[in-house]
């Protein structure tokens, strides 16, 4: 649902609810009862659903993830001027949607991937406001980065299938596809969000 429509729905619902609250006598007529039914049940349900969808969509945005101070360096790493730096290459070449860069790579594409990402997000909020916030460099993934996330986009692409590194051994590609050989932690593509490299780094574009 587009944001202007959601805001309009919430605004109209709010006005109806206020009308019923402040002018209770209008609910005595038959039309008033119908108005109360629409204003206190139908419209609020639709408006809240629209708001929920908007919030869920915003929660996948890069700006949302980087709104916590501890994530600042991870945001900077997207602008690192190095063709071998995986997050920067993906972000700067639009291999991932720039407005949803974090979410695209840090959710798994299984049935409950989005749900699990949201649970992790709630935990992050708890740690940010009620727990002990770790240093940026101490932040680790909950589980090893799954090949499936990379393969979600790369699988079947000619550049990926024919890359010399993926043809080192006859079974290299098969091992990658089956998850036996990790894309990230097997030593092949391990330069991911290396915050120590950012100290003396140059950045390609203005940091958002």
């Amino acid at each position, binding site marked *: 649902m587009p*944001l202007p429509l*959601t*805001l309009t729905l*919430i*605004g109209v*619902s*709010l006005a109806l*609810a*206020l*009308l*019923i*609250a*402040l002018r*209770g*006598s209008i*609910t*005595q007529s038959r039309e008033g009862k119908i108005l*109360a039914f629409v*204003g*206190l*049940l139908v419209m*609020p*349900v639709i*408006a*809240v659903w629209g*708001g*929920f969808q*908007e*919030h869920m969509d*915003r*929660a996948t*945005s890069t*700006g*949302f993830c980087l*709104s*916590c101070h501890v994530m600042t360096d991870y945001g900077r790493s997207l602008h690192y001027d190095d063709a071998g730096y995986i997050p920067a290459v993906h972000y700067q070449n639009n291999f991932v949607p720039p407005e949803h860069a974090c979410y695209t790579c840090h959710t798994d594409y299984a049935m409950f991937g989005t749900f699990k990402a949201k649970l992790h*997000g709630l935990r*992050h*909020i708890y740690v*940010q*406001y009620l727990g002990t916030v770790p240093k940026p460099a101490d932040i680790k993934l909950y589980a090893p980065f799954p090949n499936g996330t990379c393969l979600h986009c790369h699988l079947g692409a000619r550049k990926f299938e024919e890359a010399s590194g993926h043809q080192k051994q006859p079974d290299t590609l098969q091992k990658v596809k089956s998850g036996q050989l990790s894309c990230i932690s097997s030593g092949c593509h391990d330069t991911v969000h290396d915050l120590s490299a950012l100290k003396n780094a140059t950045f390609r574009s203005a940091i958002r």
Partner: protein
Amino acid sequence: MNIKIKLRRAGLLVAAGLLLDLLSLIPIHPLAFIAFVGLGVPITAAGTIYFLLSLLGDSETSTNP
């Protein structure tokens, strides 16, 4: 209690919840999401449920002799 008073209360609850929902859509921030899910939605839902319960109570009193 008079149904009119119950409907006014339900209206106030729904309005308060929707106002919070509306305000939570201004900033793009995790706390705005928490405000929406943790405050706005429950208050709106409470108003809607209170409205339905007041209708139920009213229909029971009007059908009893």
